[in-house]
């Protein structure tokens, strides 16, 4: 979320910072809430992931140190894991390609339409996520225009889009696109337009200007946007459930069904923990580049 919202006047604010007990008092209630209901649950999740089943009673577990839950869970569900990262990776790449021109346009060309266009970027989120995803069933249906078009070109391996991996990736790309557009915009908006003019004055081609100036300076936005798109996409199970077939199930589906339907808490917890570990590695790689001050 780092660069989502432009933050102005940082210098003047830092000088106005006071050191007093009030600061701790202001932090205490909210941070306590996050500690109890966000941080501590990871401890219980980890403990649950090591529990052992009670013989003869399904759905009941006792505290244990059964580390084998992890290799067992991964041995059974590694295809869904890989598929999640694969789908999320493609969706993130597509989102970057789609989002960049729009973010660039809003930052440099939109003029007085800038605020309105930003509203239009977030507006789709006001309509139900589930219904928007469900709407893709109609758009990508077998009788629909899009499927017929690609079929006429003989581009579809299964002669259809719905209930294939293509539909799942399309849904993921669409649903998390605003998370790519906003950080990209925030990074692009910070670029001084005079740098682009200077590059132009020095006879750099449009492409060279982009490659040498715009792209490198927008990298913080690219990194933040990639993170904010990839992570929710990798954990999502709504798109694969509504738009895909049983062959397209992702790790989120597995965690959900194991936790809620099969009541196999240790397996579901172990999988959640591995997913979180992978994501934490990504987040910390990002923090090493950017520091924590720009995170929130």
């Amino acid at each position: 979320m780092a660069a989502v919202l432009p933050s102005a006047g940082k210098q003047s604010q830092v000088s106005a910072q006071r050191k007093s007990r009030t600061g701790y008092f202001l932090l205490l209630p909210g941070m306590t809430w996050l500690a109890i209901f966000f941080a501590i649950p990871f401890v219980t999740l980890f403990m649950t992931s090591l529990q052992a089943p009670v013989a003869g009673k399904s759905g009941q577990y006792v505290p244990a140190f059964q580390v084998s839950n992890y290799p067992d869970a991964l041995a059974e569900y590694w295809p869904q894991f890989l598929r999640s990262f694969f789908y999320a990776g493609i969706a993130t790449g597509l989102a970057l390609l789609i989002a960049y021109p729009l973010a660039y346009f809003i930052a440099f060309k939109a003029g007085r339409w800038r605020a309105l266009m930003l509203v239009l970027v977030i507006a789709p989120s006001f309509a139900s996520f589930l219904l928007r995803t469900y709407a893709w069933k109609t758009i990508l249906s077998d009788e629909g225009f899009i499927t017929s078009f690609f079929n006429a070109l003989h581009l579809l391996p299964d002669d259809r889009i719905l209930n294939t991996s293509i539909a799942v990736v399309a849904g993921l790309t669409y649903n998390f696109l605003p998370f790519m557009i906003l950080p990209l915009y925030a990074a692009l908006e910070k670029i001084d337009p005079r740098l682009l003019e200077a590059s132009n004055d020095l006879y750099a081609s449009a492409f060279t200007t982009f490659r040498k100036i715009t792209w490198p300076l927008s990298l913080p936005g690219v990194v933040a946007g990639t993170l904010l798109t990839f992570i929710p996409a990798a954990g999502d199970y709504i798109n694969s459930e509504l738009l895909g077939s049983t062959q397209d199930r992702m790790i989120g589906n597995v965690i959900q069904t194991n936790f809620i339907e099969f009541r196999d808490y240790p397996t579901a917890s172990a999988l959640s923990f591995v997913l979180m570990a992978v994501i934490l590695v990504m987040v910390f790689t990002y923090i090493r580049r950017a520091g924590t001050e720009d995170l929130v």
Partner: protein
Amino acid sequence: MRWIKSKLLSVIAVLVLIYLFIPIAVVATLSFNKPEGKYNTSWNQFSLDAWTNICGVPGVCDSFMISVRIGIISTIFATILGTMIAFALVRYRFRGRATTNLLIFLPMTTPEVVMGASLLALFLNLRFPLGETTIIIAHIMFTISFVVVTVKARLQGMDPRLEEAARDLYASPRATFRYVTFPLVAPGIAGAALLGFSLSFDDFIISFFNAGTVVTFPIYIWGAAQRGIPVQVNALATLVFVVALLIVLTSQFVSYRKRKALEAGMSSDPAIAGANVKGLEAAMPRS
């Protein structure tokens, strides 16, 4: 050539915006549909039935009201807690800043399925009964961070000279806060509350894990997706979308007019920027 290039970018930008709204157009169009079978996925016949009888299917309006209630309660709590944190981050120096930043950032990047599962693991281990309370607890937890980010941005974007001016005029810290700082930050807090409500209202994954037998609006849709979503759901979702869009567009328009007024006057007028000058005057020490 240059002209074509700049137009090409505009065309792509507009196409991407249209792409963002295609599914919403589908949802809204299908709210005027009379589906042939039980699945409302293809156009059959125009009908206003869903709109004139919006609560006509059992469960739809009940779940809708449950989601509204959960949204309001969790938004109030999250907005208060998040605003306090934002003030601390911008205005105070304290130890453990990096940890604090991290603890606020992580809920925004953790997949919902992991947050839902870990919170359910906590509630199961504590044998805490699942229901509306656990949903509200979860919603407050994951919306706080978004409130912090929104309010913090507003605080940092504020002109510090306005508060300095109030202090220079011997306004007490309390009066400065009440008549200058708070009115200036209020739009940011309102925006954060709106964002928090929309996140809570639309949340499915975390709610589903911690709902027990409670059926929120998204959980209703999820269940209905298997047996066919009633047209009324499309009507309600369209209504929510239109109302939210109107609120945001109105507030944008108001702030746009304020900015125009600010630019028209040469100096920044605190009254136009949103400070309560009359209140401040009344609270000033008399000399």
